[in-house]
């Protein structure tokens, strides 16, 4: 009966749209909706989360991998041992692994990939991951020794990032257009602006995947995301862009709605080098003028947890600094006056396409207007944002969710687009990177959070919630996003 109604619905859809409805396809295909299109397909050369969301764990693998619970698991390295001083890692590699182009995977590839990523000319977006590495040595075809200059507490986790996947010297240069990895899926084709297709890799070393073909469909428009799910054009929207439509899907038995957590600290990015934002009083005034509850309710329909620093609330080392700068317009005005701007000033806010940014930006602009800061709203496309804001640092304010896990270290890089340059903070992060003891690490993480809050480096808004909506017949997608990924290795249709 159920399938009968579904057939009817599909038939109506198909005839109405004059398109073959994909729900007719045999259930060995999955169509995944995503709002943003990757800029290219090389996870070792780009900061855009969309790249990892297509390729991580599906096409590319690293020595280790992060699983759905954020734990480090073996991937291309079968096992490893760490020397007592924490400086030498011996990775035992899997044997018999082949790249999608038929070339063999061995220790030389690991040396190549890691040396390439940490090279001074490397375009890797997360070079910090490799900072501690002193040398990578091939012991034999199946063993790699990595020597660190200082112990690095997070090293195995770092090697599981999408930016640290192992690429082959034969194919690395072409990965942007034709990614060649070792994963359970092979890249098939990329219809720019529309979709990316992956097909099952029959020669995969691990457990074979249940889905033969995965199509990532790019649907930038939030309203289209809703209708594409309702019409069955996509099977899953793991990062659903339209929070206001969640209740509708929750009430619909055809769909599973999972509200999970992400590593996305959503911040009002502030150009700390550009006057008047180089003045800590101005930044603190902005912090007092931000009404987080209004932003979470107005932009995200209540989805999101307020944060007071750049740290995920579900992490054990989290310090609640939400009330460090309570919403207080009078206080904000007096701080602004102390900073020498009793009448406020004009500035711009560049907003990338995601809903949280566009809507959040309108709310922040209205809040800052209350204290005399007149913000011109400039909507930008993602590529423009990466170019103008992230690379050229040509901005005053922006709103972005930083979805990389445990990424507080970005504030230690004065060249990062916040341009926050504080030697004291940099010392904390340096010490953190060198510390292995968990308790000591947590204490340093707490210090780091407090310092960012004290300096009001950015406006800290909220932790992005992950709203995943997918067909009720689908199982195995991630509930949370410990790393940016749509890992399909365990995804299957219910029989």
């Amino acid at each position, binding site marked *: 009966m159920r399938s009968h109604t579904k057939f009817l619905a599909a038939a109506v859809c198909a005839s109405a749209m004059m398109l073959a409805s994909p729900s007719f396809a045999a259930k060995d295909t999955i169509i995944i909706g995503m709002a943003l299109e990757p800029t290219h397909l090389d996870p070792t050369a780009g900061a855009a989360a969309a790249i990892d969301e297509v390729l991580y764990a599906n096409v590319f693998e690293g020595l280790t991998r992060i699983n759905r619970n954020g734990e480090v698991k073996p991937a291309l390295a079968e096992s490893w041992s760490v020397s007592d001083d924490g400086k030498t890692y011996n990775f035992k590699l899997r044997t018999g692994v082949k790249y999608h182009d038929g070339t063999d995977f061995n220790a030389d590839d690991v040396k190549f990939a890691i040396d390439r990523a940490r090279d001074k000319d490397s375009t890797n977006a997360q070079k910090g991951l490799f900072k501690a590495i002193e040398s990578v040595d091939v012991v034999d075809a199946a063993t790699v020794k990595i020597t660190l200059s200082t112990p690095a507490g997070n090293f195995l986790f770092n090697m599981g990032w999408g930016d640290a996947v192992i690429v082959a010297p034969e194919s690395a240069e072409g990965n942007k257009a034709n990614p060649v990895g070792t994963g359970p899926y092979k890249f098939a084709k990329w219809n720019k602006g529309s979709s990316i297709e992956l097909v099952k890799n029959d020669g995969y070393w691990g457990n074979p995947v249940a889905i033969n073909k995965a199509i990532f469909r790019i649907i930038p428009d939030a309203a289209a995301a*809703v209708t594409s799910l309702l019409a069955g054009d996509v099977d899953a929207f793991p990062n659903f862009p*339209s929070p206001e439509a969640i209740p*509708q899907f929750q009430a619909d038995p055809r769909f599973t709605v999972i509200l999970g957590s992400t590593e996305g600290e959503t911040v009002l990015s502030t150009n700390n080098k550009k006057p008047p934002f180089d003045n800590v009083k101005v930044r603190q005034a902005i912090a007092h003028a931000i009404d987080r*509850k209004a932003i979470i309710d*107005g932009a995200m*329909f209540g989805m999101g947890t307020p944060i007071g620093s750049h740290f995920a609330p579900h992490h054990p080392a989290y310090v609640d600094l939400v009330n460090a700068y309570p919403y207080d317009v009078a206080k904000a005005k007096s701080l602004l006056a102390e900073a020498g701007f009793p009448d406020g000033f004009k500035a711009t806010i560049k907003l990338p396409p995601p809903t949280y940014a566009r809507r959040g930006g*309108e709310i922040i602009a*209205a809040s800052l207007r209350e204290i005399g800061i007149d913000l011109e709203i400039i909507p930008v496309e993602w590529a423009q944002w990466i170019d103008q804001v992230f690379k050229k640092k040509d901005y005053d304010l922006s709103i972005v969710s930083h979805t990389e896990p445990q990424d507080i270290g970005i504030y230690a890089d004065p060249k990062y687009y916040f341009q926050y340059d504080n030697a004291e903070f940099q010392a904390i992060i340096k010490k953190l990177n060198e510390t292995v003891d968990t308790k000591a690490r947590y204490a340093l993480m707490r210090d780091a959070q407090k310092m960012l809050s004290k300096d009001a480096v950015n406006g800290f808004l909220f932790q992005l919630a992950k709203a995943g909506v997918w067909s009720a017949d689908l199982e195995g997608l991630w509930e949370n996003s410990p790393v940016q990924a749509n890992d399909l290795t365990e995804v299957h249709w219910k029989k």
Partner: protein
Amino acid sequence: MNKDIEVESWRHILQNALTNRSFLLGAIISGAIILMALLSLFWTPYDVTKLVIVNRLKMPSAEFWFGTDHFGRDIFSMVMVGARNSIAVALVAVGIGVIIGVPLGTWAAAKRGFVDEALMRFNDLVFAFPALLSAVIITAIFGPGAINAIIAIGIFNIPVFARLSRGAALSIWPREYIMAARVAGKSRTRITIEHIIPNIANILIVQITIQFSLGILAEAGLSYVGLGTQPPLPSWGRMLFEAQTMMSFAPHMAIFPGLAIVITVLGLNLLGDGLRDALDPRLRRSR
């Protein structure tokens, strides 16, 4: 004597118009919208740039006549201010079309020959691009915003008026009184200003009302795709865009700006139709 005839005919036209139902209805609707837009300069029930999140998504009520949006703004106030923005954009854009298009068209008609040919072929070139598409290109290059939307919409109005005024002027040039003026030694420019333009004014007025309504639609379309009026100023098109993901639980967010666009365009079209009927004696006789 010439002047008297003109005055007489305008009085006549006005009389015809006032007995024309679509003109009357169109004038009332357009007048009401314009009044609302003017009123919004001095007074709106609520401040549209102030977001009161706790009031969000209220259904229409005595407190909020058209309800509130997802930021708790009063939709009635937004529709009022949106009317002002739409009208301002359309007015200036049509103005650009008239001020540049009419001289070009009448000049082409007066000169004929190479000037005419060159201008009209260039016109065809601009005309060949779908209007909204060229507006999207222009705003995409120069950045979104009300000013660029005005320029974009204005540019595609130029060939409309150039073509129309050229055609109309060509039909006036062979008339006897133009001949008389030429014999009397008036220059082509003077003839164009003194005789041609007054005689094609009625056609232009009808076209202005039509282009005005198209301008309002174009502004709404550009704002809908995010290239028109930017926040915090409300715009009907962007209100529709923001409403689309909330249609299932807050339909009022889409209904009221949608109705505002429909009613305004309807009013202007009725006005244009009525004017055309009143101005075109042949059409009148056939009724």
